[in-house]
């Protein structure tokens, strides 16, 4: 049983995965993610990104095939054991009742609790996670009174607060502004564990992920490292004319703000 504090030591292995619902079907014969790897899943709407991510997390049962993390078949783990290995940020999250930001982020510690209430260690970790995402000032605010982007950051903080060796995220920065998107993605790219995320913005994704899976019609069309992403692949996957004109690098000399690479034609 892998421990929660052994971050970065757990990879993912997907074998013979098949899933179909209605007219949609997904097939991934083989996929291996090494421990600590940062993987972005991209592709047009309806290409199966969310389904693949949900299947990898074991939250949907596939028609066939299996997912292993750190040598353990996911279906054999209890929800609590699984929650110590992987954390998951769904595309759409919702919360009922006026919970505070702090209460929600603290919920991420649930799988690690030994007693019936959070210990001092859990509180410390929670405060640290909230600082990482710039949430320390809204600790007592009610989640439902926050803006969409702020709510997203709270849920992201809850997921990171779980402190798992594997994190799966479905469009983690979809609603965030430029600065918070960059902060969040930088945080993820420096995370010790394995990260698999669905991202839409290639310009945001390129500097922060090492490996890219491009999906189309339920299949992984390309599985390439960052260096090999080119305008041909993008043009084919998204059915657009992509021009290669991105900027790399996180900061400019004499400037401590991160740089948002902008391309004119994508």
């Amino acid at each position, binding site marked *: 049983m892998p421990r929660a504090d052994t971050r970065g030591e757990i990879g993912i292995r997907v074998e013979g995965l098949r899933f179909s619902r209605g007219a949609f079907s997904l097939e991934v014969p083989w996929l291996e993610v090494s421990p600590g790897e940062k993987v972005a899943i991209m592709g047009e709407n309806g290409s199966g990104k969310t389904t693949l991510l949900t299947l990898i997390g074991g939250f949907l049962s596939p028609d066939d095939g299996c997912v292993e993390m750190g040598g353990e078949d996911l279906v054999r783990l209890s929800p609590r054991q699984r929650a110590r290995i992987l954390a998951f940020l769904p595309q759409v*999250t*919702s*919360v009922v*009742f006026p919970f505070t930001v702090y*209460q929600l982020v603290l*919920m991420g510690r*649930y799988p690690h609790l030994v007693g019936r209430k959070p210990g001092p260690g859990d509180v410390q970790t929670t405060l640290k996670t909230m600082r990482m995402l710039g949430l320390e000032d809204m600790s007592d605010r009610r989640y439902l009174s926050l803006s969409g982007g702020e709510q997203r950051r709270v849920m992201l903080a809850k997921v990171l607060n779980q402190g798992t060796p594997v994190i799966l995220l479905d469009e983690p920065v979809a609603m965030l502004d430029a600065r918070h998107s960059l902060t969040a993605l930088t945080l993820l790219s420096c995370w010790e564990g394995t990260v698999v995320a669905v991202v839409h913005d290639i310009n945001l994704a390129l500097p922060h992920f090492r490996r890219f899976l491009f999906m189309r019609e339920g299949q992984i069309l390309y599985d390439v490292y960052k260096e090999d992403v080119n305008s041909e692949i993008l043009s084919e996957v998204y059915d657009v004319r992509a021009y290669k004109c991105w900027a790399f690098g996180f900061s400019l000399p004499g400037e401590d703000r991160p740089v948002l690479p902008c391309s004119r034609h994508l």
Partner: protein
Amino acid sequence: MRILFFVVLLGACLFSLFLGPVKTSPSHLNKETFFILWNFRLPRVVFAAVNGAMLGLSGSLYQLVLRNPLADGFTTGTASASALGAVVAISLGFPAFLVPFPALLGGLLGLVFVYRLSSRSGVVSPVTMVLAGIVVNIVSSSGISFLKYLFEESLSSVVFWLMGGFFLVDWSKIGVCLTVLLAILAYSLFDALSFNLLALDRYSAASSGVDVDGLRRRLFLLATALVALSVSFTGIIGFVGLIVPHVARALFGSDMRENVYYSTLMGAMLLVVADALSRVVVPQGAELPVGIITSLAGGSFFLWLLFKKREGLWYAEG
């Protein structure tokens, strides 16, 4: 704070002990008034408190599991379906102590019907739920009326079932209710931390380490057991479970560890007060069914909830 609240509840019970058609006061106790207090008032006040606690706790659990601030035993149709179950059992000649079981079965059937009708992939639409609950209420009420028509002698009045009250109280009923209440309350307080996660969407809850379906099923069963037991002994006392979780949430926050406790206590308090009112409101010693008072209070509260989506009591749409 928890202890203080418990003391306040005891105070309310003590106070309501001396309210009723026969004038009693703690300073002028004679044999006759003591007899009334000990044999009639005390069991009744305790029974009201226990039933209120059961309904309050069930409301807290229903609102959480259905992720719906409009849910309680009454709006989900559980209470009237339980009443129908109980009435069927009595018509068929079940012994009194077995009646809660068919009531539970009826309640669960009603709940499953409402849940199926109002949920789409695990998300319950508040408005559809209320509509489905109305359907169950209407069908159950007509079923109860029909059975009353057929079995005139063996059934208590239709009013008893639809507008519940504490008419036939004895200590054995109190004992059964109290045991079930304390068992479910103890479990709920013990496991309340995981309940909190059910306030999240399905995947967020599951990925945080709770068995979402298992926990939901368990809480559905427990909440329905509370409602069914209460209904089999007192008829339908509506809206207690709707009101108190909201008040508890507004006063003590959304954490289920607090909500479970305070909903239980406030439910008890609400029903003790409502029952005391039902004893004194009509002159010349007549009594109202307490369900009339709670329904009046609950109906107004429900209306206010529907129209005034106050931040803090309500949640964002969609």
